[in-house]
């Protein structure tokens, strides 16, 4: 099942609705890499609220999405990791190092806003 990508201002929102196959994840990475450039997005939010499990492949793909997007000029935030999922990931040693995480969509957008403000300050 393909993941819908929503454009909200200069942020791209990937809202994952159901369990994804490895193929879907790779497709998601390609889609995001493409859209970030096309829409000139400065941020990407990946919402995983509905996922009950994040395995090593999913974690690795999320990380590669974040790095890919970064190279295309957008910051990535993963939002909505469930408590059980979070603890299971840590126990399996799958911490998302180097990737911003936030509680939910709202928090993720606020985080991207904060980054943008910081960037403007630095530019001045």
């Amino acid at each position: 099942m393909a993941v819908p990508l929503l454009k909200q201002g200069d942020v791209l929102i990937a809202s994952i609705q159901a369990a994804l196959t490895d193929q879907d994840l790779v497709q998601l990475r390609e889609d995001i890499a493409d859209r970030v450039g096309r829409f000139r997005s400065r941020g990407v939010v990946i919402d995983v609220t509905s996922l009950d499990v994040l395995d090593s492949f999913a974690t690795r793909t999320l990380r590669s999405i974040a790095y890919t997007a970064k190279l295309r000029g957008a910051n990535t935030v993963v939002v909505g990791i469930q408590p059980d999922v979070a603890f299971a990931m840590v126990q399996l040693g799958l911490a998302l190092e180097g990737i911003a995480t936030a509680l939910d969509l709202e928090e993720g957008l606020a985080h991207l806003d904060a980054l943008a403000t910081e960037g403007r300050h630095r530019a001045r």
Partner: protein
Amino acid sequence: MAEHTQQATSQVLLREMGISDAAIERRLTIVGFEPADLPRIAALKGVVVAHASECMEVFFTHLSKLDEAKVLLSSPALLDKARRLKRDHLLAMVQGDYGARYVEQRLELGALYAKVGLDARVFLGAFHALLKHVGSLVMKELERTPIAGFESFMSLTKIAFFDISLIVDILVFERERIIRQQQEAIRELSTPVLQIRERLLLLPIIGVIDTHRARLITESLLRSVRANRAKVVVMDVTGVATIDSRVANHILQTVLAARLMGAHVIVTGLSAEVAQSLVALGIELSKLDTVGDLQGGLEEAERILGYRVIATEGGAPPALGAT
């Protein structure tokens, strides 16, 4: 119905104490019970069955002379039950079947002793008097063949010791039940997660952390992060005297899991001893954000959340309810 509940209780005990069929087998081996004992015990069947009530009386007569058994003797209902069970016990002892059903009956009687606070030493005294009486009956019955009589009696003694081990175990188990319940209560009570500002949680940890409690702490913290939409959590371990490597690792995992949920955890109050032992253990804590004391931790949290606390001129009187 009551009988049925009783039986269920002793079955529950059997399970709780982890006495499986294999464990019963093992216990019999420990007292040195072997197939050759069965015919010897069978030889005593007649005399013991004929005098069962009399032997039971010896047991309770001995108890009646002891102050320690007052509680049991002052309750007619319990005493009646104990007498019935003790008589059943004597009859069962010579039946030759020492399986789960037999053990259940022993546990039922043991649970009754535990209920009336009959200590092992008191029980042992009375049980010895009973055995002595059985022994003299046996010797009288088999006076022509004293060697055979003695051997038969010693075989029966093996079962008696098997019974004693069960009774002592259940007395200890029942006494420890209170301790287990209190530990459980302490664990449940001692992991509060408090919201002290919008989006700021405080998790004070006091006492000993073991693996079970560490898991409870993790669960309640992660759940609260979600429920209260927390952005910063201050975990205060001032009240924790020792942290070993397993617990430190668990704390670290909790902190990382909270981070995946978008919350930043500040650990405060690591005592000098704990800090030194963690360093000595070589535990990698560079991923932790630690601040010396709770006050510092709260100030850091407020800074992250963008709060600034300002003292007003002269302060204000405390708001008292009635006056």
